[in-house]
């Protein structure tokens, strides 16, 4: 069903002010399931996700989708570590992407109401989004990303600052999205979350893909010494 | 929010429409400050069904407005400049309507002793030799030009004066305010002086010299230069201004029992 995938990346590099942040990266990504991106801080997880999503500038190399870029962009969504809240109420925040795509306001709001119900914000529709707690904001951001029914959803450490209960709720929402066929690409530094969610693992080090394997194999025993050390909790430089 | 914007837009667009014939006339501050306009304009409206829109400016600017074609006629009081205006072809002709007079105003204790002067020139000489503060309009208006001619007549040049000579570059009212503030002498037209509300310590000290007579003339702007001007309306207004009706109103206009203007148009 996926017109978007497979994704082919060859020699992709992101540079800023002469410094290479990511790359060169070569990889192929195909659905379905969840690809978890792990690696120490500064290994380039966020930049890699932005590169794939098309919001960071590609300095070198190519990123090719199975469809024209325009279409590919429209079939993706991105959830940030710190959710961006529009200065509107919950309903209008969730409805916003639909309205951008030309859905009429009553229809967009009706769908937003359904989504708010699904993620447990059904009784906060008219609250200002800025007044929500961190967990509620991240759930709102998820609903706003999923309302467009993306084929591919990028998540950049979505639970980094959240308590256990919020994390559990968000993982449930993500599991549902996955069950409905959405491919997830999740960057995280939480190894527990990585183990719970991953079907495949990308281990990044110094801006490069150091190891890419199916999750059960990876967690059973990584090939590289660095990945082993990282899994053990050692500091990896 | 949309309602608010809509309400604002509606309010803003409710432009009041102007009906009837209109004519724009540039007049001098001194004429306007006399209050005579408030007597003449309603009667003109009644007799001619003509809305005269007054632009109150100095003579210099009034002549400029006429040159640019931004007004249909001017009513000013500076003979030399008016004649130049007609010679250069900006006005069709110059029609004398009425005159009032200038007066010398100053601090009521009259430190320069000008109240007993033989004539205006002697009064100015007294002010200059005492070096008491004197406020000049300094705005190229008819009053300012008159003042400069009087200094010339006295054989004095304002450029040579010390700091007692203050050129304020302002209209009659503002200049009178300045004189009141500085307790200074000033040349003013009688009408502006009588109508002036902030006399403070000032008093009228010298008047009556024929040199101080102030002739007002009416000049229609030349339609050959500016085809858009309301030449026909300007002609109707001129005919009215020299009529017996206007004469009665002008000669009969008084402030505090004093007659201000003398009608002297030749029919």
């Amino acid at each position, binding site marked *: 069903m996926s017109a978007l995938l497979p994704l082919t990346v060859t020699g992709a590099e992101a540079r800023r002010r002469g410094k290479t942040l990511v790359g060169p990266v070569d990889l192929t990504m195909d659905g379905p399931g969840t690809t978890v991106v792990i690696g120490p801080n500064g290994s380039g997880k966020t930049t890699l996700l932005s590169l794939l*999503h098309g*919001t960071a500038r590609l300095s070198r190399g190519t990123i090719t989708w199975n469809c024209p870029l325009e279409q590919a*962009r*429209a079939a993706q*969504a*991105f959830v*940030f570590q710190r959710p*961006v809240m*529009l*200065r*509107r*109420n919950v309903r209008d925040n969730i409805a*916003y*992407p639909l309205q*951008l795509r030309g859905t009429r306001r009553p229809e967009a709001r009706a769908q937003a109401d359904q989504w708010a119900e699904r993620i447990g914000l059904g009784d906060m529709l008219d609250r*200002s989004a800025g007044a929500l707690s961190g967990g509620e904001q991240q759930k709102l951001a998820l609903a706003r990303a999923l309302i467009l029914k993306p084929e591919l959803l990028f998540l950049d450490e979505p639970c980094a600052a959240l308590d256990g209960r919020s994390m559990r709720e968000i993982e449930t929402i993500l599991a549902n999205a996955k069950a409905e066929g959405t491919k997830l690409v999740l960057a995280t530094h939480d190894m527990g979350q990585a183990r719970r969610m991953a079907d495949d693992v990308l281990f990044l080090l110094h801006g490069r893909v150091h190891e890419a394997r199916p999750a059960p194999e990876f967690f059973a025993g990584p090939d590289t010494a660095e990945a082993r050390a990282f899994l053990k909790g050692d500091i990896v430089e | *929010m949309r*309602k*608010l*914007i809509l309400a*604002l*837009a509606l*309010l*803003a*667009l*409710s*432009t*009041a429409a*102007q009906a009837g014939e209109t004519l*724009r006339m540039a007049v001098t*501050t001194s004429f306007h*400050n006399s209050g005579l306009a408030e007597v003449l304009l309603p009667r003109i409206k009644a007799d001619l069904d003509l*809305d005269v*829109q*007054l*632009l*109150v400016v100095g003579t210099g600017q009034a002549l400029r407005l006429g*040159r*640019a*074609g*931004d007004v249909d006629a001017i009513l000013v009081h500076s003979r030399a400049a008016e004649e130049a205006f007609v010679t250069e072809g900006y006005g069709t002709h110059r029609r004398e309507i009425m005159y009032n007079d200038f007066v010398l105003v100053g601090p009521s204790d009259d430190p320069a002793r000008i109240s007993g002067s033989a004539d205006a020139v002697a009064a100015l000489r007294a002010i200059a030799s005492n070096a008491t503060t004197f406020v000049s309009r300094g705005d190229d208006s008819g009053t300012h030009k008159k003042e400069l001619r009087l200094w010339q007549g006295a054989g004095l040049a304002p450029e040579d004066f010390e700091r007692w000579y203050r050129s304020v570059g302002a*209209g*009659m*009212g*503002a200049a*009178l*305010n300045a004189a*009141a503030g500085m307790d200074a002498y000033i040349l003013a037209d009688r009408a502006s002086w009588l*109508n*002036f*509300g*902030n*006399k403070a310590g000032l008093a009228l000290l010298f008047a009556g010299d024929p040199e101080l007579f102030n002739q007002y003339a009416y000049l229609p702007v030349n339609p050959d230069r*500016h085809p*858009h001007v309301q030449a026909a309306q300007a002609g109707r207004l001129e005919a009215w201004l020299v009529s017996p009706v206007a004469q009665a109103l002008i000669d009969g206009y008084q402030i505090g029992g004093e007659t201000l203007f003398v009608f002297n148009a030749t029919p």
Partner: protein
Amino acid sequence: MLDVWNGLAAAFWLVVRLDPDLIEITLRSLQVTLTALVIASLIALPLAALLAVRRFRWRRAVIAVLNALMGLPPVVVGLVVYILLSRSGPFGVFGLLFTPTAMIIAQVIIIVPLIASIAHQSLRELWTDYHDLLISLNVTQRQKMQTLLWDARRALLTAALAGFGRAIGEVGAIMIVGGNIDHVTRVLTTAIALETGRGDFALALGLGFVLIALAVTVNLVIHGLGRTEREGRW
């Protein structure tokens, strides 16, 4: 000090008697300034949004010029508009000089930089907040501007009110281009200048107090409307 009391008394009586001349010039003040405000906002707000979201070579220069123009002397604006609209000027054929339209034009020129600068400040802040999300959602330039303008509407109201304040109290420019013609282009500020010139300080002050009251009222009303709308939707 006595003048101030006389001024207050004059203002009181003008208002209590519902003086027809006062009502006329007050309404004209409102009409001219609100029209100028609507037009200036329609120019300045999209411009501010464009400057916030669009990167182009002269962006910084444009912003610097706008900021500098906030202090544009109204008299200079008036003189330039006068020369342009004069019968001998390039736009003389329209016969706009000494009409309320000329005053509106002058006020628009005076307040566009002010509104655009203030609006740009707040839109830029909002854009920093929204940047990642809007880029990710792949919005068009137009949608970016619409989103920012809508979500910053409270701050933009403040910008517009600043423009209103500057325009309603302005005298230098509209005196030159309007000519202060009775029943045609006389507004509160030019009437105040006229009465000051006549030495009638009490009346001038009275009109001044009416002007201040008007400005305060308009501000309160617009803020009030803004609040009602906020509670309903936000």
